């Protein structure tokens, strides 16, 4: 029997770690992630969760300790934000290159300087090329459900890559809403016990996470890319299986919302997708042909799915809560690359907004979509900051 609780997304994530039967947690406090591990500490103290909590001295050590636990053959969990994720950067690459099936929750937050504890996606985007599967979520429910799915995806023998589940700092992490918390038995039927492929096993010893000269190195990297490619399918499967058992489905790599016949489509990642739904509904009611694509998987990037979803639109309005300085919003760049081979691709308009915790109110999204409706297909791409 599942139970409904009125809780924050952070609390929901803590429940997910508990239900995933995580055995080692290592974490370091950083706003707005901290309440996740506080809750987990509470679960361990009350006996609701049977796990070791390693109170490390830094995020660098947190991720390392999670890798260590995996080397010993047990499931681990960590979460962080912003500077903490930046501090983990080196170990993020170790984890993916070493093919560790870790799960990390990033409660997204802007990156200093300028100093800011508030939300945007800059921290996650700056880790884009570390080789992690990155999935953005919209609600507390989706964050919890995705953490459970993340263990399935990461530990799948076809994948063996770490997964970063992103939820938006504050507007998602600290917002309370109804969350359906499944019972342990149902979760167990979805997520089997962890069976590691290789560990530090004294009876079957290996040197693991070692190095190799050129061609070996390149071969491992190619395998890593192939696993990322396979992850597109595995993410969809994990979501479909989840839906069969729990009745909740989030749409695989992307979710299309009212895209039928849409001339202009707004693309979002994360919690502001909810606001965009309202805006699309309202504009549709006014007879405007607009739709929404929620990009769930940022890595692996849903190239084929986006190409199909946008093949008939004349313009895409991309909301980036990040920027690749000297270029543009990261999602916009990736989207353009994905659309390149279309015979007549839609115009991509990039809007960088919601930085440093600033709100993206419905008016801004309407502005984006109206602008997209007004451009001709094939018009030059633009990039602008909104909300200033």
């Amino acid at each position: 029997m599942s139970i409904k609780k009125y809780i924050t997304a952070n609390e929901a994530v803590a429940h997910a770690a508990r239900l995933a039967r995580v055995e080692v947690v290592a974490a370091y406090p950083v706003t707005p992630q901290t309440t996740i591990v506080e809750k987990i500490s509470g679960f361990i103290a009350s006996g609701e969760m049977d796990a070791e909590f390693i109170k490390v001295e830094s995020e660098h050590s947190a991720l390392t300790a999670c890798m260590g636990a995996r080397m010993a053959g047990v499931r681990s969990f960590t979460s962080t934000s912003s500077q903490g994720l930046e501090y983990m950067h080196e170990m993020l690459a170790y984890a993916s290159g070493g093919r560790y099936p870790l799960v990390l929750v990033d409660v997204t937050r802007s990156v200093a300087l300028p100093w800011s504890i508030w939300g945007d996606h800059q921290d996650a985007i700056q880790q884009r090329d570390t080789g992690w599967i990155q999935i953005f979520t919209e609600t507390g429910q989706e964050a919890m459900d995705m953490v459970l799915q993340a263990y399935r995806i990461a530990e799948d023998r076809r994948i063996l890559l770490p997964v970063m589940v992103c939820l938006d700092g504050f507007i998602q992490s600290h917002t309370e809403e109804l969350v359906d918390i499944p019972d342990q038995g149902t979760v167990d039927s979805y997520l089997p016990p962890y069976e590691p492929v290789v560990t530090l096993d004294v009876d079957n010893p290996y040197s693991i996470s070692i190095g190799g000269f050129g061609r070996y190195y390149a071969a491992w990297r190619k395998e890593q890319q192939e696993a990322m490619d396979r992850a597109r399918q595995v993410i969809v499967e994990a979501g479909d299986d989840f839906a069969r058992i729990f009745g909740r489905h989030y749409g695989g790599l992307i979710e299309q919302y009212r895209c039928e016949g849409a001339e202009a489509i707004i693309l979002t990642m994360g919690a502001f997708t909810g606001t965009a739904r309202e805006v699309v509904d309202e504009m549709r009611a006014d007879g405007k042909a607009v739709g929404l694509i929620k990009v769930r998987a940022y890595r692996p990037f849903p190239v084929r799915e986006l190409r199909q979803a946008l093949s008939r639109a004349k313009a895409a309005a991309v909301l980036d809560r990040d920027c690749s300085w000297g270029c543009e919003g990261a999602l916009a760049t990736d989207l353009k690359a994905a659309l390149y081979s279309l015979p007549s691709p839609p115009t991509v308009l990039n809007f960088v907004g919601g930085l440093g915790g600033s709100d993206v109110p419905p008016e801004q999204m309407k502005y984006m979509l109206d602008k997209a409706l007004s451009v001709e297909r094939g018009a030059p791409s633009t990039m602008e900051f909104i909300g200033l």
Partner: protein
Amino acid sequence: MRESIPGPVSKAGTVPTKMGSWSTIKPVLEGKCNFCLLCWIFCPEGAISQDEADRKVLFDHDYCKGCGICAKECPTKAIQMAEPEAGRAG
């Protein structure tokens, strides 16, 4: 192994090259070995073994890098460093 285990992993104890090829000089036992085992314990490469029956040490030239620590530390000066014999491996 790489077929079943993804990532940079290798079976423990895989030694494709024996490092004896590195050395230009090799230890030889020429004097009286008192079987004190100092050369054995100090050999970085584990290239010295014990012949318990004859109470003397043996050198495995496949592993010896020719550092000469054994000769230096031998209290009876029984070990000499010498050019390897012609035609010998390493």
